[in-house]
């Protein structure tokens, strides 16, 4: 088994209206990691995600899943979609059923499992996403955050190896954001999932992600661990993004107020540590 579950090599994608959405993307998703794809609006993140489970067929370039290029035959796609699940940004266009239970069961039923197995998977998926109490509620009475969880449960029930989430935190309140991210972390640990998310929410990246790609106009501009990536504030800002708030504060302290820290510091706990070390050395 290779280290990377998905490898994308020099991927190009053009829409039929001529928009060149992806211009030579190369990225690797390491098994069991959480990878973030950052980028402003319209940089091709969603397009990239749709190529990962074969919804969009790239114009040129390769996508390797477990070391083998994607097969675009009917059977190949079916197998691929079992292993790579996508949670879309707007749960209202993902949830097709008025019944939460039926919606979650859809993907699992399509895998031709026995009814008993499907029921069991639906129940565990609901437990894992903390929505067991919503079982008998109709979809249209749920809040946005609840719908999002139902959407995640519907994909988890298929027990994929890779979970692709397009803007999982968009439209959620701060508590909702941290709940969803913690939930994903927990699911990832229990199932050994590989997760890839796209987001504008910079502050969650150093907390929950192991690796970061920064996209700008269909290209990867930067990649590395959050620590490495946020050491290039200029490039980050060029891509219509910003540093995490803490990172920005630490940058100002370093530049203007004579503090000295090593590397980039992006979370509260990192900053606390860095300031403590600094005050000891003074």
């Amino acid at each position, binding site marked *: 088994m290779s280290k990377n579950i998905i490898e994308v090599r020099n991927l190009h994608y053009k829409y039929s209206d001529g928009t060149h959405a992806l211009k030579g993307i190369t990225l690797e998703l390491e098994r069991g990691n959480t990878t973030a794809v950052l980028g402003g609006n319209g940089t091709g993140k969603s397009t990239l995600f749709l190529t990962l489970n074969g919804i969009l067929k790239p114009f040129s370039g390769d996508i390797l899943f477990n070391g083998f290029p994607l097969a675009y035959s009917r059977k190949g796609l079916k197998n691929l979609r079992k292993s790579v699940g996508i949670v879309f940004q707007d749960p209202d266009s993902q949830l*097709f059923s008025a*019944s939460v239970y039926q919606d979650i069961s*859809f993907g699992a039923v399509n895998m031709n499992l026995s009814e008993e197995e499907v029921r069991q998977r639906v129940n565990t998926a609901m437990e894992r996403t903390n929505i067991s109490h919503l079982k008998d509620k109709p979809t249209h009475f749920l809040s946005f955050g609840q719908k999002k969880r139902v959407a995640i449960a519907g994909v988890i029930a298929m027990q994929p190896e890779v979970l692709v989430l397009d803007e999982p935190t968009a439209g959620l309140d701060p508590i909702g954001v941290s709940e969803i991210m913690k939930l994903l972390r927990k699911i990832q640990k229990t199932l050994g999932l590989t997760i890839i998310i796209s987001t504008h929410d910079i502050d969650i990246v150093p907390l929950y992600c192991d690796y970061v790609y920064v996209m700008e106009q269909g290209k990867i501009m930067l990649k590395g661990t959050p620590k490495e990536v946020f050491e290039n504030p200029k490039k980050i800002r060029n891509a219509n993004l910003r540093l995490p708030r803490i990172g920005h504060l630490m940058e100002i302290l370093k530049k203007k107020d004579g503090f000295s820290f090593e590397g980039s510091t992006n979370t509260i706990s990192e900053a606390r540590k860095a300031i403590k070390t600094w005050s000891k050395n003074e």
Partner: protein
Amino acid sequence: MIYIDKYAYISKLNKQDPMYKCIFCILTFGVCLWANSIIVSSAVIIIMGWYTIFKGGIPFLAFIKLMTIPMSFLIIGVLTIGISVSEKQNIFLYYISIFGTNIGITIKGIQNASSLFFKALGMVSCLYYLSLNTPVVDLLQVLRKLKVPKLFIELMGLVYRFIFVLLETMDIMITSQKSRMGYSSFFKSYRSLAILATTLFIRSYKRSNELYTALESRGYDGEINVIESSFETKWKHYFVPTMINLFLIILALFLRYYSGGL
């Protein structure tokens, strides 16, 4: 319109097997239609009302309000049956003559009209019993069991789900139009309404594309197959509805022979 839907999820009867509720509803509906008697129809209204209000926990006022919805149609319909035209004058209780023809009400007319009135209300109460206590998703499950073509059921399910999304989108758009004075004059209202309709259509089209993509990525290949929540069915559940309907039938027959079919 939407609050009817809400009651189905609040109702204490919504965990009951939808098949049972359907059969109860249709049986009673049929008996009420066949009996053609004011007393039986009233009994049906009372029984169905009792089930919905006391067993289902639907607010009394809400039920009454819903029962008055078909009233305007009903009154117009009943009036046309209650009023008869004839050249003879002795059959009328009250009449007016216009150009030699007499328009008025007869005893037969009143009997027909009132029996129709109660019959219609009785049948409506049966349908309310079903729709106020059964979520749509459960009804679809019944249709599936009755082997209604899959395509219909899938369409009904999708339509039901997306009515709410559409209404929500519409609400947001109307609010945003109103806040820019889109409905401040007659002409502007027309224009805003036209824009609203067009945009809603385009939005729906876009959303259907997104939905298709999302379904596809969960392995959709032409059929929406899901697992339904299971209901406990016991044959003894059917005892009460059968007894009630037997009673209604006997009552109807009795009335037919002894009271001239009231």
